[in-house]
Each structure stands twice: as structure tokens, then as C-alpha cells.
């Protein structure tokens, strides 16, 4: 089976820090299959955040090739990147990043607004919240929800546009281990049910162990790939 949703060849990323050039990625080539669960690990400074940003289309690589769900990402302008992020990528962040003034429902609705969906937005958002088990919390604001519930809202928001990949950046980092495991179970179940590719960036071996494959980065390069 070769149904790769992510294909990169020789990705490089160079940051200019004053006089210094920082090579955050030094030639990363990888393939991730549709429906796969992949963990990306590595010490800080290994380039895993840069890789996540690049795979999530938040940033353009300096060199190399990146094909996401059949579309070549390099050479796209800012607005086209925004469009790709909107349609193909769902983000789950360590610190949830919900809009504090908006209800759970409006938060989940946000990507639909940017994608220009006009009809049935509320219904879609409601279904997404039901899928993460928050059907009874749709009118609550983030401050009225627990950390685990907030992360569930964030997951619903990431999934509402039915993206090709779900990027989770330390999704359990701000949660205690019990709630963290619940979130992991939820993510894995969603992956099983809907087949959304799941990419987890983490430094927690227990989290990484639940993925089908672990990619370890070191110094901007892939050091090893381990299949679980």
C-alpha cells in the first residue's frame, strides 16, 4: 500500500539570525501514509517544531520538496498557504489556543467561517463537538471548561473541516497524565474511526509509544525511524 498523504524530499530550512545562519532542517525526507499515526520526537533544537510548522504549512521550507495530499506546497503564497491550512490541516496545540471570549461552538465554527462555508456551519460544529464528547458544553466559554474539555474543543475545531492531517503539538503537555491519556485515546479513536492521519509532536515517550511509527530528529536530520 502506498497512499502517502505527506511526501517530503530533502527539506531544508535556514533561519537568518542576525549574522548567523541557523540550519533548522538539513535535508529531511519522509513519507507518511494516509491514516497513519506518527510521532515526531527529538530534543529541543532538533528541528521538530520547524518540521511541524513546515508540514502544517505554517511556514515554507528553504529548499526541498513537500507534497501534501497531492498538492505541492512550495511556491504557494501566503493566502494559498492559509487556504491549504484551512482545508487540509487541523492543529491541536499544547496550550489549546481557544478564543476566550467565544463559546465552544463559535470556536469550533471558526475554521468553517474562514473556508467560506455558509450553510450548516452551526450544525457541523455541533456534530464535531458531539464527536469529542462535549455535546452538553457547546455554549460554554473556555474559562468554564476544564483543561481536558478545552483540549477536546480544540480537537473538534481541528477536525471540523475534515482535514487530511491532524497536527498535534504536545497535545497532552498541559494536562495531568490521566486526562492526557483520555485525550490520547480520543485522538487515536478519531484516527481509527475517520482515518484522519495523525501526527503527534512530543517528547513524552509514553505518548510516542502509542503511535504506529516514531520519527526521531536530531540536529535537523532524521536519526531513526522506529515502527511500533
Amino acid at each position, binding site marked *: 500500500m502506498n497512499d502517502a498523504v505527506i511526501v517530503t524530499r530533502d527539506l531544508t530550512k535556514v533561519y537568518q539570525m542576525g549574522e548567523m545562519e541557523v540550519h533548522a532542517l538539513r535535508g529531511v525526507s519522509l513519507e507518511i501514509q494516509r491514516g497513519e499515526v506518527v510521532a515526531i520526537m527529538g530534543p529541543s533544537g532538533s528541528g521538530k517544531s520547524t518540521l511541524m510548522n513546515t508540514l502544517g504549512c505554517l511556514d515554507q521550507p528553504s529548499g526541498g520538496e513537500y507534497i501534501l495530499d497531492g498538492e505541492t506546497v512550495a511556491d504557494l503564497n*501566503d*493566502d494559498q498557504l*492559509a*487556504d491549504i*491550512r484551512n482545508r487540509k490541516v487541523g492543529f491541536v496545540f499544547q496550550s489549546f489556543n481557544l478564543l476566550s*471570549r467565544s463559546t465552544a461552538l463559535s470556536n469550533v465554527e471558526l*475554521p468553517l467561517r*474562514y473556508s*467560506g462555508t455558509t450553510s450548516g456551519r452551526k450544525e457541523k460544529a455541533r456534530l464535531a463537538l458531539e464527536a469529542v464528547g462535549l455535546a452538553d458544553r457547546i455554549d460554554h466559554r473556555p474559562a468554564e471548561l476544564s483543561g481536558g474539555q478545552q483540549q477536546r474543543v480544540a480537537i473538534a475545531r481541528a477536525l471540523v473541516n475534515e482535514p487530511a492531517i491532524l497536527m498535534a503539538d504536545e497535545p497532552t503537555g498541559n494536562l495531568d497524565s490521566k486526562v492526557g491519556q483520555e485525550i490520547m485515546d480520543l485522538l487515536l479513536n478519531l484516527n481509527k474511526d475517520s482515518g484522519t492521519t495523525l501526527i503527534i509532536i512530543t517528547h513524552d515517550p509514553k505518548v510516542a509509544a502509542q503511535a504506529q511509527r516514531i520519527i526521531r530528529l536530531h540536529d535537523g536530520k532524521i536519526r531513526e525511524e522506529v515502527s511500533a
Partner: protein
Amino acid sequence: MNIWRSVIEALESLNGNKMRSGLTMLGIVIGVAAVIAMLALGAGAQDTILGSLSGIGTNLLFVFSGGEDESIRNPEPLTMSDAEALEDSFSAPSIEAVAPVLQGSAEVSYSGEASTVTLTGVTPAYFPVRNYVVSEGKEITEEHILGRASVVLLGVEVADTLFDRREGLVGETVRVEGQPFRVIGILEERGGGMMGSQDNEILVPFSTAQARILRRSPADQVDVIFVQSVDADSVTTTEEEISQILSQRHRTAVGENDFTIFSQQDMVDTASSITGILTTFIGGIAAISLLVGGIGIMNIMLVSVTERTREIGLRKALGARKRDILIQFLTESSLLSLVGGLIGIALGWAIGAVVGIVSTRSGTAFEPAVSLSAVLLATIFSTVIGLFFGIYPANRAANLVPVEALRYE
């Protein structure tokens, strides 16, 4: 994203920080209120002045001796025969009536009360020409002129000063420059005029003034000739006719008239250009505060952009394009200034109304006028200010790099 949705979202966001939104808006409120109040007061002042000028009569012309500038030396005075020549309906068909007057100041007294007033020596034509109405008693007649009668009509202010009342004065005797004059009538109240109150005036027969009070040389000199033209449209024709007759009589060269013809329209034009300049000037000063308010908006929007860097990063990660972010912040800033502008209009209108009431109470009829155009102008202008001063912060927000914005603490 539809507009309505962004407006609601902007309102939610502004509502989230009421104190700050309120203070930012205050700048615009004060600016717009100042502009609206100034324009209203200016328009009110203009209406009052123009109203008192129209009271003079739109088809009225004034003829004075003397050129329009310093170049005419030794002008020949206007005389009674000049006035009579103007009454000739063959050479001046568009002239309806002519009222020559002598005018000066005189002291009027009654049982110890004395007052200095404007004394005008008039002919019977004066009353219709100047729209003077007698509230009690009679006008000056041809018999009074012929007999150089010692009779006088009092303006209400003079009556107030001398008698403390305005009725029942016909038959009383007052002294004008020491000479006894019998009161034959009281003039109706006229209000303020260009040169002070028109009610502090007394009217005597022309011949009486000429012979006994305001002696001029030559003896048949007149100070002003009021000319009424047949209708308001023929004022220009009338002016030409007067000019032709008088220059012929005074033997002046073309363009060197030794008299000046002034129409009520000229006064209206002068007055409106003066009040117009004043209104623009004061309104301009008020507009500076609007500018300051706009800078306040820019300032607070910049703070808001910095504060919400993470939110902007998140929105971009979820697929917001530059345009979406731009619209979001521009909606907020223009909404701030639009709402501020609307409150400012109400406040400015209220200020104008209060000033109007106060000045009416204190005796000057004055009606501040908030025009629709001023309201529209203020609304549009304040929104434009919000847009303009919002552009820089909004642009800054829209151009944030999502990766860095998300990392921002």
C-alpha cells in the same frame, strides 16, 4: 466571512474591554461633538444675522455719499434734490419708493431720565421702505414735514429707558436736545441690527431734524437715501438706474462715483462670508481634536494587535487569510469611531441646544441649526478616521507571520 458576522465579532471584542473601548471612543466623541456644536452654533449665528438682515427688506438699497475706496476725494454730499431725482419714474422705472434720511445721535430726556439715542429724520416714505410699524399712535405724515412739527416716535428701548413702559405714551412730551417734542407713536420692537439695537432709535420729521437738530451744510444735505426697488429681482437694475442718475447729477467720471450703493444682498453676502469663515475656522480647530481622537484609536489598536498576537497566529493557522485579519481589525477600529461619532453627534447637538436655550433666555433669539449635511459629514468623517487610523495596526496584524505569532507570549 460576511460583514454582519465580522461586525458582531468586532462588537464582542470591543465589549470584552469596555473601559478601554469607552476611553478610546471618548476621543472621537469629543472631537465630533465639538465639530457638530461649532457648526450648529455657526449656522445658528448665520441664520440670526441673515434673519435680521432680511428684516431690512430684500429689495432695499442704501445710497451713501463717498466712494467705495479712498481714491475719491471731496465727494459731493447727497442732497434732497438727489433723492427727488431718484423718484422720477421715467428715468428710474424700477424704483418703488425713496426715503432720504438724516441720522445722528441725540439726547432724549423725560423728567430727569436721559438717554443718548439714534435720531433719524424721516419722510413718510420711510415707514413702508424700512418696514417700520407703529404699535401705538401714528406715523409721521406730510403735514408734520410741512409744518416742521415737534413730534417724535419712540423705539421701545427708548420708551423703556424713559418711561419704564411701552403703552399709553402718546401725548407725553419728551425733550430732544433740550427742545420739547410730543410723542405721537411707539415703534414696534425690531431687535438687533447690524449697527446696534434698532430699538434705541427715535424718529422725527425730516424737516424738523434738518432745521433744529442735525444741521448740515449744505442745508439740504441728506445722510442716507434708502431706495426700495419694485421687487427683489430688479435690485440690480435699480442699482444701475441710481448710479446713472446720480453720476449724471454729480458729474462724475465713469467708475469714479462719489457715492456708494449698497444693497441688502451685499450685506447678506458680506455677513455670510464672515460667519462662514468663522464657522470654518472654529470647526477646523474642533476638527483637530477629531484628529487627536483618531490617533488615540490607532494607539489602542496597536496595543490590541500586540496583545492579540497569539489570537492572530491561531486564526491564521486555522486558515484566515491576510484579508480576513485586515477586515477584522478595520471593522473594530471603524466601529469604534462610528459609534463614537454617533454619540458625538448627539452630544454636539445637545451642547448646541443648551447654548441656544441659554442665549434665548438672555435675550438674543438664537437657534443653533444641526444640518443633515453636518451629521452626514461627521458620521462619514469619523468612520473614515477609524478606517484610516486602523489601517496601520490592521496591516501589522495581517502581516504577522503565523509561526512567530503562535510562539508569542
